[in-house]
Protein backbone atom coordinates (compact mmCIF):
# COMPACT_ATOMS: atom_id res chain seq x y z
CA UNK A 1 0.00 0.00 0.00
CA UNK A 2 2.87 2.30 0.82
CA UNK A 3 4.38 1.47 -2.54
CA UNK A 4 1.11 2.39 -4.20
CA UNK A 5 0.88 5.77 -2.54
CA UNK A 6 4.48 6.40 -3.50
CA UNK A 7 3.47 5.64 -7.08
CA UNK A 8 0.62 8.12 -6.86
CA UNK A 9 3.00 10.74 -5.64
CA UNK A 10 5.39 10.01 -8.50
CA UNK A 11 2.55 10.07 -10.97
CA UNK A 12 1.28 13.40 -9.75
CA UNK A 13 4.77 14.84 -9.92
CA UNK A 14 5.45 13.54 -13.43
CA UNK A 15 2.07 14.58 -14.77
CA UNK A 16 2.45 18.08 -13.39
CA UNK A 17 5.94 18.31 -14.82
CA UNK A 18 4.69 17.10 -18.21
CA UNK A 19 1.85 19.60 -18.32
CA UNK A 20 3.98 22.53 -17.20
CA UNK A 21 6.75 21.82 -19.66
CA UNK A 22 4.24 21.19 -22.45
CA UNK A 23 2.68 24.57 -21.71
CA UNK A 24 6.13 26.13 -21.86
CA UNK A 25 6.72 24.54 -25.26
CA UNK A 26 3.38 25.75 -26.52
CA UNK A 27 3.63 29.33 -25.36
CA UNK A 28 7.28 30.27 -25.01
CA UNK A 29 9.10 32.34 -27.60
CA UNK A 30 12.57 31.11 -26.64
CA UNK A 31 13.21 28.17 -28.92
CA UNK A 32 16.24 26.74 -27.16
CA UNK A 33 14.53 26.66 -23.79
CA UNK A 34 11.44 25.26 -25.48
CA UNK A 35 13.49 22.32 -26.75
CA UNK A 36 14.75 21.73 -23.25
CA UNK A 37 11.20 21.89 -21.91
CA UNK A 38 10.17 19.42 -24.58
CA UNK A 39 12.94 17.09 -23.40
CA UNK A 40 11.61 17.40 -19.88
CA UNK A 41 8.09 16.64 -21.09
CA UNK A 42 9.28 13.55 -22.97
CA UNK A 43 11.28 12.32 -20.01
CA UNK A 44 8.34 12.73 -17.66
CA UNK A 45 6.12 10.87 -20.11
CA UNK A 46 8.75 8.14 -20.17
CA UNK A 47 8.50 8.05 -16.39
CA UNK A 48 4.74 7.62 -16.67
CA UNK A 49 5.26 4.77 -19.13
CA UNK A 50 7.47 3.13 -16.50
CA UNK A 51 4.76 3.58 -13.88
CA UNK A 52 2.22 1.74 -16.03
CA UNK A 53 4.64 -1.14 -16.53
CA UNK A 54 5.79 -0.40 -20.03
CA UNK A 55 9.56 -0.05 -19.72
CA UNK A 56 10.29 -0.71 -23.38
CA UNK A 57 8.12 2.19 -24.47
CA UNK A 58 9.75 4.35 -21.83
CA UNK A 59 13.26 3.52 -22.96
CA UNK A 60 12.63 4.02 -26.66
CA UNK A 61 10.92 7.27 -25.76
CA UNK A 62 14.16 8.39 -24.18
CA UNK A 63 16.38 6.82 -26.83
CA UNK A 64 14.54 7.89 -29.95
CA UNK A 65 12.74 11.05 -28.93
CA UNK A 66 14.99 12.66 -26.39
CA UNK A 67 18.20 11.13 -27.67
CA UNK A 68 17.75 11.57 -31.40
CA UNK A 69 14.83 13.68 -32.58
CA UNK A 70 15.14 16.51 -30.11
CA UNK A 71 18.90 16.63 -30.51
CA UNK A 72 18.18 17.21 -34.17
CA UNK A 73 15.90 20.10 -33.22
CA UNK A 74 18.54 21.62 -31.01
CA UNK A 75 21.10 21.12 -33.71
CA UNK A 76 19.01 22.90 -36.32
CA UNK A 77 18.27 25.77 -33.96
CA UNK A 78 21.99 26.18 -33.39
CA UNK A 79 22.61 25.99 -37.11
CA UNK A 80 20.07 28.72 -37.76
CA UNK A 81 21.86 31.01 -35.33
CA UNK A 82 19.20 31.27 -32.67
CA UNK A 83 20.17 34.57 -31.10
CA UNK A 84 18.91 36.75 -33.88
CA UNK A 85 16.67 35.11 -36.40
CA UNK A 86 14.28 32.23 -36.57
CA UNK A 87 12.31 30.93 -39.45
CA UNK A 88 9.04 32.64 -38.82
CA UNK A 89 5.99 31.40 -40.57
CA UNK A 90 4.20 34.70 -40.39
CA UNK A 91 5.32 35.65 -43.86
CA UNK A 92 4.51 32.19 -45.16
CA UNK A 93 0.96 32.29 -43.91
CA UNK A 94 0.10 35.84 -44.81
CA UNK A 95 -3.55 35.50 -43.98
CA UNK A 96 -3.54 33.70 -40.69
CA UNK A 97 -6.82 35.16 -39.52
CA UNK A 98 -9.34 32.92 -41.28
CA UNK A 99 -7.10 29.92 -40.89
CA UNK A 100 -6.80 30.44 -37.17
CA UNK A 101 -10.50 31.04 -36.74
CA UNK A 102 -11.58 28.01 -38.77
CA UNK A 103 -9.02 25.67 -37.28
CA UNK A 104 -9.66 26.95 -33.77
CA UNK A 105 -13.39 26.39 -34.03
CA UNK A 106 -12.98 22.91 -35.38
CA UNK A 107 -10.31 21.94 -32.89
CA UNK A 108 -12.38 23.21 -30.02
CA UNK A 109 -15.37 21.29 -31.35
CA UNK A 110 -13.46 18.06 -31.74
CA UNK A 111 -11.84 18.42 -28.35
CA UNK A 112 -15.17 19.14 -26.71
CA UNK A 113 -16.89 16.18 -28.36
CA UNK A 114 -14.03 13.84 -27.54
CA UNK A 115 -13.89 14.80 -23.92
CA UNK A 116 -17.67 14.64 -23.65
CA UNK A 117 -17.94 11.20 -25.21
CA UNK A 118 -15.13 9.82 -23.13
CA UNK A 119 -15.93 11.27 -19.79
CA UNK A 120 -19.67 10.64 -19.79
CA UNK A 121 -19.37 6.94 -20.45
CA UNK A 122 -16.26 5.89 -18.57
CA UNK A 123 -16.93 3.68 -15.57
CA UNK A 124 -14.20 2.87 -13.11
CA UNK A 125 -13.32 -0.79 -12.93
CA UNK A 126 -10.46 -2.81 -11.55
CA UNK A 127 -7.85 -4.33 -13.78
CA UNK A 128 -4.27 -5.33 -13.69
CA UNK A 129 -1.45 -3.67 -15.61
CA UNK A 130 0.80 -6.33 -16.94
CA UNK A 131 4.33 -6.09 -18.17
CA UNK A 132 5.18 -7.69 -21.48
CA UNK A 133 8.59 -9.06 -22.26
CA UNK A 134 10.51 -7.68 -25.16
CA UNK A 135 10.22 -11.02 -26.91
CA UNK A 136 6.45 -10.79 -26.96
CA UNK A 137 6.53 -7.26 -28.29
CA UNK A 138 9.06 -8.16 -30.95
CA UNK A 139 7.28 -11.25 -32.13
CA UNK A 140 4.02 -9.34 -32.49
CA UNK A 141 5.88 -6.66 -34.37
CA UNK A 142 7.35 -9.13 -36.84
CA UNK A 143 4.20 -11.17 -37.45
CA UNK A 144 0.98 -9.21 -37.08
CA UNK A 145 2.59 -5.87 -37.76
CA UNK A 146 5.05 -6.94 -40.42
CA UNK A 147 3.57 -4.69 -43.10
CA UNK A 148 3.80 -1.47 -41.05
CA UNK A 149 7.22 -2.58 -39.87
CA UNK A 150 8.45 -2.82 -43.44
CA UNK A 151 6.75 0.44 -44.30
CA UNK A 152 8.76 2.19 -41.60
CA UNK A 153 11.94 1.19 -43.37
CA UNK A 154 10.69 2.66 -46.64
CA UNK A 155 9.49 5.78 -44.86
CA UNK A 156 12.88 6.30 -43.28
CA UNK A 157 14.58 5.75 -46.63
CA UNK A 158 12.36 8.39 -48.16
CA UNK A 159 13.13 10.74 -45.32
CA UNK A 160 16.87 10.24 -45.71
CA UNK A 161 16.79 10.82 -49.46
CA UNK A 162 14.50 13.77 -49.02
CA UNK A 163 16.44 15.44 -46.26
CA UNK A 164 19.70 15.17 -48.17
CA UNK A 165 18.07 16.37 -51.36
CA UNK A 166 16.45 19.38 -49.77
CA UNK A 167 19.16 20.54 -47.44
CA UNK A 168 22.16 20.22 -49.71
CA UNK A 169 23.51 23.37 -51.29
CA UNK A 170 23.32 23.51 -55.04
Amino acid at each position, binding site marked *: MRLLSLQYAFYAFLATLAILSAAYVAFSRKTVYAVLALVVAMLSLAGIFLLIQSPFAALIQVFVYAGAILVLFLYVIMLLNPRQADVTI*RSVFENRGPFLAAAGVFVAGFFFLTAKWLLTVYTVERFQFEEFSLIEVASRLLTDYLLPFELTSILLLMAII*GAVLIAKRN
Partner: protein
Amino acid sequence: MDPVFFPANLLLSLVIFSLGVMGVLWQRNALSVFMSIELMLNAGNLALISFAQRFGDSAGAGLVLFIMTVAAAEAGVGLAIFIRLYRQRNTIELDKAHELQG
Protein backbone atom coordinates in the same frame (compact mmCIF):
# COMPACT_ATOMS: atom_id res chain seq x y z
CA MET B 1 -2.13 -2.30 -10.78
CA ASP B 2 -4.86 0.12 -10.01
CA PRO B 3 -7.73 1.77 -11.79
CA VAL B 4 -6.69 5.36 -11.38
CA PHE B 5 -3.75 5.70 -13.74
CA PHE B 6 -5.77 4.82 -16.81
CA PRO B 7 -8.36 7.62 -16.87
CA ALA B 8 -5.74 10.00 -15.54
CA ASN B 9 -3.51 9.07 -18.45
CA LEU B 10 -6.28 9.66 -20.96
CA LEU B 11 -6.99 13.03 -19.44
CA LEU B 12 -3.29 13.89 -19.37
CA SER B 13 -3.02 12.89 -23.01
CA LEU B 14 -5.95 15.11 -23.95
CA VAL B 15 -4.47 18.01 -22.00
CA ILE B 16 -1.07 17.65 -23.66
CA PHE B 17 -2.73 17.25 -27.05
CA SER B 18 -4.73 20.42 -26.65
CA LEU B 19 -1.65 22.26 -25.40
CA GLY B 20 0.05 21.11 -28.57
CA VAL B 21 -2.83 22.30 -30.73
CA MET B 22 -2.84 25.65 -28.97
CA GLY B 23 0.88 25.88 -29.49
CA VAL B 24 0.51 25.26 -33.21
CA LEU B 25 -2.06 28.01 -33.46
CA TRP B 26 -0.28 30.41 -31.11
CA GLN B 27 3.34 30.18 -32.15
CA ARG B 28 4.74 32.07 -35.10
CA ASN B 29 8.11 30.44 -35.25
CA ALA B 30 8.11 27.37 -37.48
CA LEU B 31 10.37 25.46 -35.12
CA SER B 32 8.10 26.15 -32.17
CA VAL B 33 5.11 25.09 -34.23
CA PHE B 34 6.84 21.87 -35.08
CA MET B 35 7.70 21.29 -31.44
CA SER B 36 4.05 21.73 -30.55
CA ILE B 37 3.23 19.13 -33.18
CA GLU B 38 5.66 16.80 -31.44
CA LEU B 39 3.66 17.38 -28.27
CA MET B 40 0.55 16.22 -30.12
CA LEU B 41 2.28 13.08 -31.30
CA ASN B 42 3.43 12.40 -27.76
CA ALA B 43 -0.08 12.74 -26.45
CA GLY B 44 -1.04 10.09 -29.00
CA ASN B 45 1.76 7.88 -27.75
CA LEU B 46 0.59 8.23 -24.18
CA ALA B 47 -2.99 7.33 -25.09
CA LEU B 48 -1.79 4.38 -27.15
CA ILE B 49 0.36 2.96 -24.37
CA SER B 50 -2.37 3.48 -21.80
CA PHE B 51 -4.87 1.62 -23.94
CA ALA B 52 -2.40 -1.15 -24.68
CA GLN B 53 -1.73 -1.67 -21.00
CA ARG B 54 -5.40 -1.35 -20.13
CA PHE B 55 -6.47 -4.04 -22.57
CA GLY B 56 -3.38 -6.19 -22.26
CA ASP B 57 -2.18 -5.94 -25.85
CA SER B 58 1.42 -6.97 -26.09
CA ALA B 59 2.05 -5.03 -29.29
CA GLY B 60 1.45 -1.63 -27.68
CA ALA B 61 5.09 -0.70 -27.23
CA GLY B 62 5.73 -1.69 -30.83
CA LEU B 63 2.99 0.61 -32.05
CA VAL B 64 4.64 3.49 -30.22
CA LEU B 65 7.79 2.65 -32.13
CA PHE B 66 5.93 3.18 -35.41
CA ILE B 67 4.74 6.59 -34.33
CA MET B 68 8.25 7.54 -33.28
CA THR B 69 9.52 6.47 -36.67
CA VAL B 70 7.03 8.80 -38.29
CA ALA B 71 8.10 11.58 -35.96
CA ALA B 72 11.73 10.96 -36.82
CA ALA B 73 11.06 10.96 -40.57
CA GLU B 74 9.02 14.14 -40.33
CA ALA B 75 11.66 15.80 -38.19
CA GLY B 76 14.37 14.94 -40.68
CA VAL B 77 12.55 16.23 -43.73
CA GLY B 78 10.86 19.13 -41.98
CA LEU B 79 14.00 20.52 -40.45
CA ALA B 80 15.72 20.20 -43.82
CA ILE B 81 12.92 22.28 -45.33
CA PHE B 82 13.34 24.91 -42.62
CA ILE B 83 17.06 25.10 -43.23
CA ARG B 84 16.54 25.46 -46.96
CA LEU B 85 13.94 28.16 -46.56
CA TYR B 86 16.04 30.01 -44.03
CA ARG B 87 19.02 29.86 -46.30
CA GLN B 88 17.07 31.16 -49.28
CA ARG B 89 15.40 33.92 -47.35
CA ASN B 90 18.58 34.94 -45.70
CA THR B 91 20.66 35.03 -48.81
CA ILE B 92 18.29 35.67 -51.67
CA GLU B 93 15.65 38.01 -50.37
CA LEU B 94 17.12 40.30 -47.79
CA ASP B 95 14.01 42.41 -47.39
CA LYS B 96 12.03 39.38 -46.37
CA ALA B 97 14.74 38.25 -44.02
CA HIS B 98 14.35 41.58 -42.31
CA GLU B 99 10.62 41.21 -41.95
CA LEU B 100 11.12 37.75 -40.50
CA GLN B 101 12.33 39.22 -37.22
CA GLY B 102 9.79 38.95 -34.49
